C-alpha cells in the first residue's frame, strides 16, 4: 500500500480533495448496500499499487453491456479502467487487432494465471462456427480464459442465462456462461443490458474484499438483485391504493399511476433499477411510463412475453395486497418454469438480510 495513490492524486489533480476521495468511497459503499464505515476499507483497497488485470470477452452479444459500462458515473469509465483495474483485453476498445490482440490475451492468461478477473458479455452458442474469434470457438476460449481466472463476472442477460439468443427456438443452442462452463467462480449480473453502475460496484467489491459479492440462488449479487422492483418502486403507493393507468397516455398515465395493468413485470423482477436508476440516476423504465419487462430474470424473453399482457390474475389483487401475496399468486398462476423461479425468489427474500449481515461480519 502507498499513501499517494494514483487514484487519489488523479482525483486531486482534478480538484478533488482527500475528503472527496473518501466521499467517493462512501458513495460506493452505499451502492454496495454496505454501512458507511466501510469507506476506509474501500479507500485502502483502491490504493493498491498494482491494479488487477481484467479480460473482457464478448461472444454472442450486442455490445450493449459494454456501452452501459461506458455510461457509469461513480466511478466513471476512465477512472475504472485507468485507476482501479487494468483492462488488458476488450475487443471493442483495445488498440491492437489480430495477432497483437491475441498476444494481449495470451500474456494475461499466462502471466496472471489465477489472479486476473474475466468478464463475459454475450451468450455461448454450441456448435461449430456460430461464434469464433481468431478462428476459435467461443466455448473453447471461455473455458480457457474463465477456467484460469480468479473470478468471472457474467454481464447482462445473455452471459448470465442465454438472453435472447437462447429464446424460443434458440437457433444456435445458446446458453449462459455458468451453464456452458460449469464449476468456475462466477457472479451473474443479468439485465438487458446490465446496469453499468452494478458492474462498477462489483469491481469495487472485489477490490475491497478480495472476493465476489454474496449472491442468490441464481448467482446474482444481493446488493443489486436482493429486492423486487415492486418493493422499491416509486409508484408502489398507487398500486396499494388501487390507482392504475388503464391505457397509454390517459390522465392516470400522465399522473404516474401504477403500470401493472399495462403489463409491468416489476412484481416478479429482482433488480435495483428503482434505486440506482440508469444513466447516472436520470430515469428508469417505469419512470418513463413504460412497464418493466423483467430483464434480470432468467428466460424473461419467453416467460414474460407478450410484454403488454398483465401478470396473471392474483388473489387479493388491489387494495391492501402485499408484494408477498402478489408473488405467491404468480407462483400459482404461471406454471412450472415460473414456479421454480418464484420459489427461488421467495427463498432469497427470506434469507437476504441474514446473508448480508454475515457478509459484513466476515469482511
Amino acid at each position, binding site marked *: 500500500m502507498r499513501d499517494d495513490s*494514483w487514484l487519489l492524486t488523479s482525483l486531486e489533480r482534478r480538484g478533488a480533495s482527500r475528503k472527496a476521495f473518501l466521499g467517493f468511497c462512501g458513495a460506493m459503499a452505499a451502492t454496495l448496500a454496505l454501512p458507511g464505515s466501510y469507506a476506509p476499507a474501500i479507500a485502502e483497497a483502491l490504493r493498491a*499499487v*498494482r*491494479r488487477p488485470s481484467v479480460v473482457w470477452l464478448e461472444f*454472442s*452479444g*450486442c*455490445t450493449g453491456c459494454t*456501452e*452501459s459500462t*461506458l*455510461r457509469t458515473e461513480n466511478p*466513471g*469509465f*476512465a477512472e475504472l*479502467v485507468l485507476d482501479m483495474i*487494468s483492462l*488488458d483485453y476488450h475487443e*471493442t*476498445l*483495445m*488498440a491492437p*487487432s*489480430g495477432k497483437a*490482440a491475441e498476444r494481449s490475451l495470451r500474456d494475461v492468461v499466462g502471466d496472471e494465471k489465477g489472479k486476473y478477473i474475466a468478464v463475459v458479455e454475450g451468450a455461448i*452458442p*454450441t*456448435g461449430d*462456427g*456460430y461464434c*469464433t474469434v*481468431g*478462428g*476459435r*470457438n467461443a466455448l*473453447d476460449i471461455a473455458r480457457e480464459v474463465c477456467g484460469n481466472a480468479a473470478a468471472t463476472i457474467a454481464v447482462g442477460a445473455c452471459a448470465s442465462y442465454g438472453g*435472447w*439468443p437462447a429464446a424460443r*427456438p*434458440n*437457433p444456435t443452442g445458446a*446458453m449462459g456462461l455458468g451453464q456452458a462452463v460449469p464449476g468456475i467462480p462466477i457472479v451473474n449480473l443479468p439485465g438487458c*443490458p446490465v446496469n453499468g453502475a452494478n458492474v462498477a460496484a462489483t469491481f469495487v467489491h472485489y477490490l475491497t474484499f478480495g472476493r465476489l459479492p454474496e449472491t442468490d440462488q441464481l448467482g446474482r449479487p444481493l446488493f443489486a438483485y436482493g429486492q423486487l422492483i415492486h418493493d422499491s418502486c416509486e409508484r408502489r403507493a398507487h398500486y396499494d391504493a388501487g390507482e392504475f393507468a388503464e391505457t*397509454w*397516455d390517459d390522465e392516470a*398515465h*400522465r399522473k*404516474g399511476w401504477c403500470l401493472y395493468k399495462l403489463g409491468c413485470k416489476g412484481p416478479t423482477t429482482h433488480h435495483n433499477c428503482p434505486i440506482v436508476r*440508469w*444513466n*447516472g440516476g436520470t*430515469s*428508469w423504465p417505469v419512470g*418513463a*411510463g*413504460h412497464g418493466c*419487462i423483467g430483464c434480470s430474470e432468467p428466460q424473461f*424473453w419467453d416467460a414474460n412475453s*407478450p*410484454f403488454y399482457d398483465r401478470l396473471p390474475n392474483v388473489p387479493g389483487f388491489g387494495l391492501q395486497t402485499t408484494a408477498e401475496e402478489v408473488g405467491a399468486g404468480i407462483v400459482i398462476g404461471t406454471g412450472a418454469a415460473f414456479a421454480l423461479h418464484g420459489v427461488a425468489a421467495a427463498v432469497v427474500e427470506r434469507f437476504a438480510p441474514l446473508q448480508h449481515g454475515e457478509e459484513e461480519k466476515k469482511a
Partner: protein
Amino acid sequence: MTRIAIDPLTRIEGHLRIEAQVDGGHVTEAWSSSTMFRGMELVMRGRDPRDAWLFAQRICGVCTTVHALASVRSAEDAIGVQIPDNARLMRNIIAGTQWVQDHVIHFYHLHALDWVDVMAALRADPAATSRIAQSISPWPKSSTTYFKGVQDRLRHLSQSGAQLGLFQNGYWGHPAYHLPPEVDLLAVAHYLEALEWQRDVIKVQAMLGAKNPHPQTYLLGGMSVPVDPASQVSLNDERLAEQLRLLQEAKTFVDQVYIPDLLAIGAAYKEWANYGAGTGNYLCYGDFPVSGSTDPKTFWVPRGIVEGRDLSRVVPFDERKIGEFITHSWYTYDAGEGAQKHPSDGETTPHYTGPKPPYDMLETNGKYSWVKAPRYDGKAMEVGPLARLLVAYASGRGDVRKSVDATLHALNLPPSALFSTLGRVVARGIETQLMVDKLLEWHYELVDNIGRGNLSVHDGTRWDPSTWPADSEGWGPHEGPRGSLGHWMHVKDGAVANYQAVVPTTWNASPRDAKGIPGPYEASLVGTPVADPERPLEILRTVHSFDPCMACAVHVTGPDRKLVVRVDVPV
C-alpha cells in the same frame, strides 16, 4: 505475396475478420467475414407485433434504439397507424442524439488510435499542445497545466509495471503514424474528455426513453413517456430545460472539440483521400420526417442513390430492387447458390461449411461469412454518413453543400476526395454538426407543441389486436448512424409471421455475390498500403472508416418455409 488474417478486428462492434492478400506493399484482394450468428428473425416468429421492437432493439447495443425505431415503424406500417406529432419529434430527437453520440465515440474511441500514436504523446511539449489547442478552438480546457496533467497520467500508466491496459500492444511507432506529438497529446486528452461527454449527452435518451443503451419507450402508435408540464413524473418544464442544456452542451463539444480535432488530424493525413474508394455506389433510404407526412420527399435527409461517383444526378430508389445473395455466405437457398431474393421473399437455411475451429485461414473461394450479400439492382452499395452526404449533395441541398464545400476548402481538397477513407471520416463529422443544429430545432418544436397544449404522445386506436388486418406486411426504414436500415414485418392473425432486417453493415461488410462482385469493405481495401503485414494499421484505417457493426449485420430471413437449423438445445 503474403496472405494475412486480422481476427479479432478490434475497435468495432462485434466479430469481424478480414483476410487480405498483400503484394508489393499493397492489398491486392480482401475478404470480409462475420464470424457470429444468432438468428433474431427466427426468435421473432410468432411473437406479438407490439413486442417486436423490444426484441429487435437487442440486435445491437452500439446501434441501440435504431432497430427499435425501424421495427416499430415496420409494425405501424403493417398495422396502419400514424403517430402523434410529439412522438415524431421525440423519435427524431432520440435518433438524432444517437447519431451525435455514436459518431463522437467512433471518432475518439474506435477510430482515433489508427491515426494517433498514444505513446508519442509522451514526447509532446504540453506548452506547444496548449498553443495549438488555443489556435484551433475556444474550448476552455487548453492550458499547459491541463495537458501536462494528461501526459502525467499517461506516463504513470506506461511506468507503473507497464500496465497500459487498452493501449498495450498497440502499433505505436508504426511508420504510418505522422502527427506531431503535440497533436497526439491533444487527441489523447480529448479521448478522455469524450469518455465523459458521451455519458452525459446520452441522458437525453434516458429522459425520453428511460435508459441508454436500449431505451424502453416506444409503443405501437407512439411513445410511452408522457408529456405534461403540470406533472412531476412526465416530460415537464424542468426536464425539457435539462434536455435543452444537454443538447446545447452537445453542440458546444461538437463545434469546439470534435470538428477542430477532425480538421487537424485530417489535414495531417490527406494522402488518405487517395485510398479506400470502394464501390463508388451510394445508397440512402432517407429519414427524419419534418411533418406528419411519411412521403420521403419531405424528409430532412433525402432518399436516393449516387451511382458511379456521379454527383450530377440522383437515381430514384425503388425498394423492390433490393436482393440478397448467399453464394459466399453460410446459408443455402432452395433455388440454388446463384439465386437472389428480395427480403420480403427471403429464405433461411443457416449452414456452416467453414473450416472446423480452431482454424488459420478461411476458404474464401467458397462460403466465408455469416453476412449475406445484399445488392441493389445487382450493384454493391455503400451506405452510411458518406452515402447520405453525397445523395444530399447531389440532390442540391443547400445546407449540405455549404458544409461540405466549407470543410473541403478548409482541408484544401477537391470534392472527388470524398470518395475515400478520409472522405468517410470527414462526412461523419459534417453530418454530426448538421444534426446537432437540427436537434435544437426539434427540441424547440416539441416545446412549442407542449406550450400550445398538445400533450398527445400515443395513438391507441390500433393497440387492440382485434383492430388489425388479418394479413399485412410493413416496411420500417431508418437512417441509423451507420447508414440505411430496413426491417420488414409480416403480421398474420395477430402474430409476427415473418421478420427480416437488412442493416447498414450488411451492405458494407457484405462478401462477394454470385457474380463475384466484392462488397464495399472488400472493394475499398484494394490498393491500401501495408508497410508491415505483421502490423496492418492501414487496413484498420479503411475498415474503421465504415464504423463496422457486426452484430447488426448478420440476420436470417425466411417466410413460411421449412427451416433447416441445427439446434442442440441443452437440457
